[in-house]
């Protein structure tokens, strides 16, 4: 104690006069001399260890502060660069790094622009490049229980270290050197952490205790601040390779993660998982942390799987594989499977979560099931079956095709795992390519499992080949006894005649009169005749308009009730185009007929949907100007049902836009203004529109629009929207818009996303087509509410299309508002 206080007094007495000289003397030689005295106490100086320790403890910071304050003195400026580096910089680079760092950062944030600041920054740079941060970390590791650091100091250093780029950038702005930018700094920091861990390993081998507390906290804090990505990109691969061969490294890395405080552990773990490839790497780096730390357990078994869904499939594989790798962790896998099952089979989740999330959960489910072994599957069989049946059923009920397909694919895959080969669930659908990866989930983990189903598939295929009737060109099966070689080459002598006249013979001829065509469709039992009649129907009707008018309603009735008895190719398109032709040629009666039939008894959903499609297409055709050469297929392709128009149209639009933007049009003068023609749709729009709104709330025995038949409701709303949109500029548009808004207002919170999509589409159409002033007049009471509703949908609807449509409506509404508010001010 005495010795210690002796050293204290001694050092203070030696340092104090020197400091006084440095701070007040004007003689640079004197100052240099004083500094050289103090240098002895730094690393590499010749003072005794106890004196150095005392200097570091009590005087170092003071010395640095004095040096900083001399930055603007004459002495500092008169110092040659070489000596300046030795006498000034040396103090910062050779003392305890934590104190130096604090002083440097304080200086940077408090000094104003000037050479002093520049110098300090360059010192900070050399501080970093000299590996002083590594020294700092390592010194913290060694303080296992020696000096009980003040919590405040520790916290301060942690904050400064973790946010150094922010602190410097705040002061230096665009002049920040590259080394102090996050990219470089955090990569270096990760390297320092690795070096520290390496030192730790070395020390542990030598029997020395170390504490990883500070490093772990630093790691946690950095990740928490969002730099986990940068740090782990360096850290994770290195850890993965080091832990592969060395058990001590494994212990150290587990210890490190254990020491990360709970509040930060999540960000560390997620960043780490993203950069560790493979379950075994994660297992090596993390050990059984998931069992020890509740927070980690929650993150890995719940949050990553069920609450988030932005992660790549690789991460799912890593996490689930990690749970499956160790015997102790397998119960967790089962627990995960149970909760995933619960979510997958939850019908509310199917309705209220986005498609991406459902896909993510499906992937997790299949991966989980694939990781289970046979006994575990048997153990969980009941629950899995329950999940499969419930989940598949509620997906099949969905009106979105994607969801249905997903249900079928996952159901098949599960059944493949659960059931005996004879009693497997099978759907007869041609799976789209976008679900192939789901199926792949099952196969990629156990390559040993694969050959078996493959070989059985091959043999089955072989059998079916055998049982098939002889194909057209079976030339291979030539017998040995009567091979053709022994025969004369008689065939080759005979030259064939011209056989081009050999054509497929058609028995029936297509009908030439509208009435013949109608007759054939109504009563013929000859498939060929019916097919030919159907094929020529549209052309005949359009050619013979006056005859077509005479039988238009009857023809429509026949077509509406026509069944595809002979599985005619393109039956639906042919029938639809014929019906559209009728509705265009003789609009009023045909449309009246169709709209009344829409709400009458004993029609199938398909027929009702057909009616809607025909009405929409006919309205579209009527609203377009008559062109010489009618592209028949074009409008059909454009106004197809909601389901089909999703992605196919999308890419086509993108391509078209791109072409448009790249095309330079040269012919400027030659283009003629389009000839004005009366809109044929405007006068008859009411016939299309209002009857469809008449009976929607009157449920019938076979048709309950507001109840279970929401598929038709969705299509109806969509069609109404389309009819509205086409009626732009028509006088009747205002009334139509009013009625449509009233109608959709009642069903805007419908549970089915197809209906909601239709509603938003209709709203968009109203905003587009209704004259601005009338719209605002109509909306005036509900304007605020409408906006709130649209904003809410735009933000939180699980369906992406709904969200974008809502945004679109909002934009349209704002535009309307703006023009309306501006125009009166201009008038006055």
């Amino acid at each position: 104690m005495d010795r210690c206080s002796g050293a204290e007094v001694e050092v203070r007495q030696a340092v104090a006069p020197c400091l006084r000289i440095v701070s007040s003397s004007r003689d640079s030689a004197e100052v240099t001399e004083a500094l050289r005295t103090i240098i002895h106490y730094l690393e590499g100086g010749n003072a005794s260890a106890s004196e150095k320790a005392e200097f570091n403890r009590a005087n170092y910071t003071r010395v640095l502060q004095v040096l900083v304050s001399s930055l603007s003195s004459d002495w500092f400026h008169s110092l040659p660069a070489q000596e300046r580096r030795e006498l000034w910089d040396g103090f910062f680079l050779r003392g305890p790094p934590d104190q130096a760092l604090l002083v440097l950062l304080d200086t940077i944030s408090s000094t104003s622009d000037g050479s002093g600041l520049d110098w300090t920054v360059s010192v900070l740079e050399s501080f970093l490049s000299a590996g002083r941060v590594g020294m700092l970390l390592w010194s913290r590791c060694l303080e296992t229980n020696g000096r009980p650091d003040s919590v405040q100091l520790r916290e301060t250093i942690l904050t400064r270290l973790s946010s150094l780029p922010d602190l410097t950038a705040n002061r230096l702005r665009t002049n920040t050197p590259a080394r102090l930018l996050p990219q470089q700094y955090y990569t270096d920091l990760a390297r320092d952490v690795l070096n520290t861990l390496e030192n730790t390993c070395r020390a542990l081998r030598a029997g020395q205790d170390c504490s990883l507390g500070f490093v772990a906290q630093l790691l946690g804090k950095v990740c928490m601040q969002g730099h986990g990505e940068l740090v782990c990109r360096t850290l994770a691969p290195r850890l993965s390779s080091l832990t592969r061969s060395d058990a001590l490294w494994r212990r150290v890395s587990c210890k490190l993660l254990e020491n990360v405080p709970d509040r930060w552990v999540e960000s560390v773990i997620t960043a780490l998982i993203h950069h560790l490839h493979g379950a075994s790497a994660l297992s090596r780096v993390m050990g059984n942390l998931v069992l020890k730390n509740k927070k980690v357990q929650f993150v890995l078994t719940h949050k990553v799987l069920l609450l988030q869904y932005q992660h790549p499939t690789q991460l799912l594989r890593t996490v689930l594989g990690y749970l499956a790798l160790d015997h102790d962790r397998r119960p967790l896998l089962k627990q995960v499977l149970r909760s995933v099952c619960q979510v997958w089979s939850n019908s509310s989740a199917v309705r209220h979560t986005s498609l991406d999330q459902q896909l993510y959960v499906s992937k997790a489910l299949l991966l989980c099931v694939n990781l289970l072994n046979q006994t575990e599957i048997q153990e969980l069989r009941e629950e899995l079956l329950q999940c499969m049946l419930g989940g598949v059923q509620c997906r099949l009920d969905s009106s979105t095709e994607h969801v249905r397909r997903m249900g079928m694919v996952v159901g098949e895959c599960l059944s493949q795992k659960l059931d005996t080969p004879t009693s497997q669930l099978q759907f007869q659908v041609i799976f789209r390519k976008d679900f192939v990866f789901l199926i792949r989930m099952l196969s990629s983990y156990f390559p040993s499992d694969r050959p078996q189903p493959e070989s059985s598939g091959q043999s089955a295929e072989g059998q079916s080949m055998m049982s098939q009737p002889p194909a057209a060109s079976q030339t291979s099966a030539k017998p040995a006894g009567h091979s053709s070689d022994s025969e004369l080459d008689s065939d080759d002598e005979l030259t064939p005649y011209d056989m081009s006249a050999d054509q497929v013979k058609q028995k029936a001829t297509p009908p030439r009169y509208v009435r013949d065509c109608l007759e054939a469709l109504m009563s013929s039992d000859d498939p060929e005749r019916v097919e030919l009649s159907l094929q020529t129907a549209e052309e005949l009707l359009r050619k013979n308009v006056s005859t077509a008018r005479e039988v238009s309603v009857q023809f429509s009735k026949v077509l509406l009730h026509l069944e595809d008895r002979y599985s005619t190719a393109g039956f639906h398109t042919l029938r639809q185009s014929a019906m559209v032709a009728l509705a265009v040629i003789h609009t009023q009666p045909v449309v009246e007929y169709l709209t009344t039939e829409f709400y009458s008894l004993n029609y199938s959903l398909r027929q009702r949907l057909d009616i809607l499609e025909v009405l929409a297409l006919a309205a579209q055709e009527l609203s377009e100007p008559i062109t010489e050469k009618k592209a028949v297929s074009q409008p059909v392709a454009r106004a197809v049902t909601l389901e089909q128009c999703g992605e196919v149209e999308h890419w086509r639009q993108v391509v078209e836009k791109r072409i448009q933007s790249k095309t330079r049009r040269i012919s400027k003068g030659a283009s003629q203004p389009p000839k004005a023609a009366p809109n044929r749709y405007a006068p008859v729009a009411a016939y299309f529109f209002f009857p469809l709104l008449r009976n929607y709330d009157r449920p019938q025995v076979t048709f309950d629009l507001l109840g279970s038949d929401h598929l038709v409701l969705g299509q109806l709303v969509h069609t109404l929207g389309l009819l509205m949109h086409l009626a732009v500029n028509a006088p009747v548009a205002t009334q139509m818009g009013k009625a449509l808004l009233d109608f959709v207002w009642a069903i805007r919170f419908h549970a089915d996303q197809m209906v909601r999509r239709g509603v938003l589409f209709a709203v968009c159409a109203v905003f587009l087509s209704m004259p601005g002033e009338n719209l605002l007049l109509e909306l005036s009471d509900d304007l605020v509410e409408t906006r709130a509703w649209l904003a809410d949908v735009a933000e939180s609807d699980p369906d992406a299309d709904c969200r974008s449509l809502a945004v679109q409506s909002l934009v349209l509404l704002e535009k309307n508002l703006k023009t309306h508010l501006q125009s009166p001010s201009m008038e006055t």
Partner: protein
Amino acid sequence: MVMARPPPDPLFTLRGSAAPVNTLQFHCSTAGRPLLYSGSEKGCVHVWNLNNRRAERVLEGHDGASVIWVSTVDSTDAFLSQGRDMRVCVWDLHEGRSAVTHSLRTGSVGFCQCSLLEAETNKTLLALPAEHTEEIKVMELASQTPVRSLIPDSKQGMLMCMKMFQAESGPLLCAGYEDGSVVLWDVSHGRPLSCLKAHPEPVMCLDFDTDRQKGISGSSDKTLTSWIIDSQQNLQMQNSVLLTNPGVSQLCIRADGKIVAAAGWDGNVRVFGWKRLKPLAVLQHHKDLVHSVAFSNHPEASQRLMAAGSKDQRISVWSIYSES
């Protein structure tokens, strides 16, 4: 590239049968005038003289019931006709006579044609469809004694067509059935030797070439299938060819084994090389189904004609690939 020759026109056409022509048979082997027999739907058999191209005689022996098969018997100079009145009539046509010497009752209500086999051993066998739709009866023609009854064990449906021929081991018979299978029968032992599922649809017609041990069958669909009998007397699929229009009512292999003709339901006669079923010609003349096609057995190769009988009541006679 030389343009392919246009298909030939018929040499001449025989009109006057006044009914759809069901079956044809040439008779040119003996000295004297070459003849063509044709059986019509009205129950008449016309005997055409090919020199003056006129019907020499009309034989009526089936009470107006459709005649579905005619054949000459070389050994006894007799003539056979099979009608849908369930009878096969044996005619004596010597010296201007035209009398039915006797008739055999078949009991068959189907369309299957009989098949005649004149072996060297003076024993003429006739295979007839029988009362049970899948049964074949084989009888000795001279003594009218039944030799065998051939009934398949498995369900192959109605008997559709057959062809009897002489092999080293004895008479064999190929029969086509309703389910599309072709069965090879050993007539002397009355047992099936082999079965081949040649078509998915009923076998409508078949013909067999004894020199090459190779046969061909047609169906109501678009394929013609050829098959061979291997050394173990098993039927084996060999080759197949796709037609433009479905349905073949008769197939006939020319005696020299160079070509095979198919009577199509689309009114065309198609000619193929017999070796590899290479399509050679499509003869378009008839306006309705072609029911029958036959090659003449004229001793002079250049005089060997082909005749096709159609539902449009005409018989077209062609000379095709007869130059060499």
